């Protein structure tokens, strides 16, 4: 059976070229970058080369890159770091974010609220966009951090970070963005968008899992999460994951080099998918028609439930995901879909298809053959055929 992986926003295959550059660091060049001897210095050189590469791709200086264990840690470090810095001065403060952030941001915010920080969750419109005016209105004299994600992991909507960061800076407030989904998909230039903090994760860009980075603009003070031997200039202690970091930097370099060629190809496949799905009755595309990740297609198919859809597709070799409650640990439908105004019954019927480097025209043809059949089969079983009133 054909296997079609359409879940690249969940994670992606490590590129063979990435595996190749990682391998020596497991068993040959395995030194500790803090050791004085030759093997240690060799590891340190690999670490600093990787940092240079990452910095170059994100358009910053190597000193501004802190390697972490991935997107979750980078986001935690930005929020808690800003909060700890404030606490150290004996004060609490106000944080602004949006209602559609990843759980690692929202749960961090809730925890900070339990410590006495206040958090404003900016709403989004039906496309998932934050309005600049709402940000302007939300900033107070007590605001210490604004964080709005660059691209949303479910519906793929891309925010105008440059404009939002500008608003925060006019009021002297730090600006962070979660760029985990956008890096290598669309241009990310920290200087151009003017952010102070930016999170990246390796496994979403064909790199290994458990590694990523936080960009921290020079002059920005955020306290560390991890104290110890003073690695990463004291910001992130712990012996560096050299194979992971080397792999991450290679994945980023390949992703950036290939983006001008690869993303238009993927976007064409994605558009073909959207066009093909649009003929299915009682279905629609969620997110913004234009300002969206080139890899992302997100649909609702009324009268069926997303977990069933994902499992039936999986039975046909097509791997996708859903924002349906039935597929989540919390049994609540996706907070993102509710935030863009979908009623719960429609949020349950959602399907996310996210493309990547490995997808081909044949994959899309196969998906466009199988998906309508699966939708028809599940609708045959459903008591609802034309409305929820039956």
């Amino acid at each position, binding site marked *: 059976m054909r296997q079609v992986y359409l879940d690249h926003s969940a994670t992606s295959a490590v590129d063979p070229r990435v595996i190749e550059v990682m391998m020596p660091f497991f068993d040959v060049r395995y030194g500790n970058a803090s050791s004085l001897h030759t093997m240690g210095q060799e590891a340190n050189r690999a670490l600093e080369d990787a940092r240079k590469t990452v910095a170059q791709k994100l358009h910053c200086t190597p000193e501004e890159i802190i390697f972490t264990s991935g997107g979750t840690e980078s986001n935690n470090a930005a929020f808690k770091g800003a909060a700890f810095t404030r606490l150290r001065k004996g004060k609490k403060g106000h944080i602004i974010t949006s209602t559609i952030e990843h759980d690692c941001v929202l749960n961090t915010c809730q925890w900070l609220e339990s410590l006495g920080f206040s958090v404003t969750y900016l709403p989004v419109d039906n496309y998932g966009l934050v309005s600049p005016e709402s940000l302007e209105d939300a900033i107070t004299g007590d605001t210490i951090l604004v964080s709005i994600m660059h691209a949303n992991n479910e519906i793929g909507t891309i925010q105008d970070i440059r404009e939002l960061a500008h608003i925060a800076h006019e009021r002297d407030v730090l600006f962070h963005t979660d760029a985990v989904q956008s890096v290598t998909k669309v241009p990310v230039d920290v200087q151009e968008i003017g952010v102070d903090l930016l999170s990246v994760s390796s496994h979403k860009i064909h790199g290994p899992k458990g590694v990523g980075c936080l960009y921290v603009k020079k002059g920005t003070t955020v306290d560390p999460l991890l104290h110890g031997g003073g690695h990463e200039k004291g910001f992130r202690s712990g012996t560096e994951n050299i194979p992971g970091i080397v792999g991450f930097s290679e994945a980023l370099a390949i992703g950036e080099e290939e983006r001008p060629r690869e993303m238009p190809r993927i976007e064409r496949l994605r558009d073909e998918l959207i066009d093909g799905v649009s003929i299915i009755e009682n279905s629609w595309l969620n997110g913004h028609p234009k300002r969206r990740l080139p890899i992302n297609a997100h649909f609702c198919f009324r009268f*069926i439930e997303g*977990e*069933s859809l994902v499992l039936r597709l999986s039975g046909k070799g097509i791997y996708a995901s859903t924002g349906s409650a*039935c597929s989540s640990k919390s049994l609540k439908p996706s907070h993102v879909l509710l935030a863009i105004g979908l009623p*719960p019954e429609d949020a*349950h019927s959602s399907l996310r298809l996210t493309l990547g480097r490995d997808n081909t025209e044949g994959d899309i043809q196969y998906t466009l053959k199988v998906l309508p059949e699966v939708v028809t089969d599940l609708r045959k*079983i459903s008591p609802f055929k034309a409305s*929820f009133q039956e």
Partner: protein
Amino acid sequence: MYSQQVIDHFNNPRNQGRMENPDGVGKVGNPVCGDVMYIYIKVKDDVIQDISWETMGCAAAIATSSMISELAKGKTLDEAEKITRGDVADALQGLPSVKMHCSNLAADGLRKAIEDYRNRRGMA
């Protein structure tokens, strides 16, 4: 996550379909929760002669609908009424714990269909 039995009933649902002129219908669940189940029965001499169902829901909801139709067919109303959520889950080699509450609606649906049949007959 799901047992082989659940996956089998989910992929090859038994006794699925809308029933013309049923003797009783049980409707349970809510689109807002993502699971809705309609259970239809035909009754003769207090025995469930035929049973079918329509379900919108997750794999567990579809599998429990399918399973209850097998468990209830040919049973007397009094026997069928005693089928519990636990019986359905056991027959499916268990359900994930999060699904025991929300999606395991079939036993309730069947009881409602029996109640509807009795109401129609003025036997309630």
